């Protein structure tokens, strides 16, 4: 589903990703761990096609298709979803409006029929119920005045509504209390299916107790330094990243 080959990328002329290779197959969950500033969010942004993140070498295939020339909204339409490390506030735009615009934009992109108001409300009510999110949250402006945990949960609601093929979760677990963590994990596990793939970026192996990964990768200084099974997360939690600093491979 996702094939990243020798990916080099820079931001503001500064090289940050220095040759990443990563393959994620349908139905798999991968986790990326790594020290602060190692390039995890950068990788997420590059996947999503953010302006200013320039791919200088290598490339990304999604569902066998080269997406490097696609705009962020086109990649979203192709089925890439990014849960943000810092979800953004949009004053005056209700969650409902935002979700409806987003969903219908993606449906248009894929040549599917747009949902009308009634269908949409029905669908979204179902999702909030599943995720234990109160309906009055839908009437509030996107992330405005939300607590840190609520913002993360809101991103998971968006994910549930948009039903992406690939979800990239950038530290969605940080700042969550244990109940919220379970909600997020549940949301992700619901999405987890034969045809979807998930990439979890996290600092804590705690999340991985709930979302059990098929593979764990250590990203350090712009490169994946080691890959392994879920036990690697436990090891990292114990030993830290000392072994992976610098250029050591």
């Amino acid at each position, binding site marked *: 589903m996702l094939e990243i080959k020798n990916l080099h990328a820079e931001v503001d002329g500064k090289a940050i990703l220095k040759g990443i290779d990563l393959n994620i197959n349908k139905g798999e969950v991968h986790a990326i761990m790594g020290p602060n500033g190692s390039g995890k969010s950068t990788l997420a942004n590059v996947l*999503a096609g*953010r*302006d200013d993140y320039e791919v200088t070498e290598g490339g990304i295939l999604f569902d066998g298709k080269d997406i490097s020339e696609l*705009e*962020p*909204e086109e*990649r*979203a*339409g192709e089925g890439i*979803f*990014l849960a*943000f490390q810092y*979800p*953004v*506030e*949009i*004053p*005056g*735009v209700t969650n409902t*409006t*935002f979700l409806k*615009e*987003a*969903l219908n*934009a*993606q449906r248009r*992109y894929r040549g599917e029929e747009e949902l009308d108001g009634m269908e949409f409300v029905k669908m979204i009510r179902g999702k909030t119920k599943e995720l234990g999110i109160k309906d009055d949250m839908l009437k509030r*402006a996107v992330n405005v005045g939300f607590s840190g945990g609520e913002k993360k949960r809101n991103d998971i609601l*968006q994910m549930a509504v*948009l039903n992406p093929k690939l979800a990239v979760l950038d530290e969605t677990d940080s700042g969550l209390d244990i109940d919220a963590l379970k909600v997020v994990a549940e949301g992700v596990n619901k999405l987890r299916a034969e045809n979807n793939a998930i990439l979890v970026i996290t600092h804590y192996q705690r999340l991985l107790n709930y979302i059990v990964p098929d593979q764990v990768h250590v990203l350090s200084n712009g490169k994946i330094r080691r890959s392994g099974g879920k036990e690697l997360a436990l090891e990292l939690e114990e030993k830290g990243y000392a072994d992976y600093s610098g250029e050591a491979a």
Partner: protein
Amino acid sequence: MAATQETVEQVQSLEMDKYKYGFVTDIESEKAPKGLSEDTVRFISAKKNEPEWLLEWRLKAYRLWLTMPEPKWGKLEIPEIDYQDSYYYSSPKSMEDRPQSLDEVDPELLRTYEKLGIPIKEQEVLAGVAVDYVFDSVSVATTFREQLKEVGVIFCPISEAIQDYPELVKKYLGSVVPAGDNKHACLNSAVFTDGSFVYIPKGVRCPMELSTYFRINELNTGQFERTLIVADEGSYVSYLEGCTAPQRDENQLHAAVVELVTMDDAEIKYSTVQNWYPGDEDGKGGIYNFVTKRGICKGKNSKISWTQVETGSAITWKYPSCILQGDNSVGEFYSVAITNGRQQADTGTKMIHLGKNTTSRIISKGISAGKSQNTYRGLVRVAAKAEGARNFTQCDSLLVGETCGAHTVPYIESKNRSARLEHEATTSKISEDQLFYCRQRGISEEDAVGLVVNGFCREVLQELPMEFAVEAQQLVKISLEGSVG
């Protein structure tokens, strides 16, 4: 040859898309001789078959106008206006004998309004909205008049009101905006052609929204409409005005005057969606929108509320204001002003507190994009006797891009110690983070800008009557097209 022709047509059709109201109706019209003189004023007055007192009133205004300087306080660059290079009266020929019913209205006119998305045929118009259609200098039709008459509401072209209700018109015309108020209002007083007149009798809640739709069609023609709304004791009316004009390389002048009067316990809600042609990207053409709007809360507990969505015009100079004379009266001003390309807007309000315990509220949202300049200019004045006056002002500016300007100029003059005046102002930019967040969810950049800006304006847009809120949201989005990327 054929190929070039095709290209030309293609380019034209593209251009048209940007301002979809930019077409011209090909219709024979009757005009006053070009230029402005006492003869022009007499011509208009004669065309309208006006009584002597009104002609005198106009002539007095004209003579005063000759002596008045152009107002200079706006932060606007206004090219010198050649008043002699314009027509002051233009009427579709077919309107010579005023049609008695819609069946008699020229089909070409009917088609024009259909194209504008506001068909005149009563069975097709928005349910529950009565509309006065003003085309250049004349009202071509007013819908639902009979139904309104049944409850005593008068809603008709002002030219007709002058014939049919001369006492009412004489009593209130110029009572809120005197001819000598400013040069533009003075010109209007001399040459106003049509506009709407509304009278809501005591205790009547107007059963439907009233609306006037202004259309400038003729080349080199100014539009000088005059609206007068009087709400008698305990009455209520909601009124909406909309406007468009063809796309032309020449600038056209629109100098309107609107006067509102509320008696005890009466309320007028006045909404405007202004979408005059803004000119092209290089600032060529477009309407000069120099408008004087003012309401007086004459009676106790009365209320006047202005809501405006200003997206069009090359230059906007406009300060809908409230004189809060009655005790406990309330004035409100909700404004969205969007400028893009080379547009300039200098707009705001004046709240004049004269009565006791009067309250005013100002919410202004300015959005500037492209190379435009957008200024909020407001005055809150509290007279010595206005015990217990209160004002809340909030001015927010949003910048789209790096080459535009946003300015906030609030004036406060308080002569009463008990006044409570609050002012808040913010300036922000549409952030890259917001746009990326939207785009990551599948929303295109242009739609994302529309979404964020609509969110920014929400407090104001939700003041609009339901029927028009959706249209206004669309307009907000369209007027920012091409402002990013």
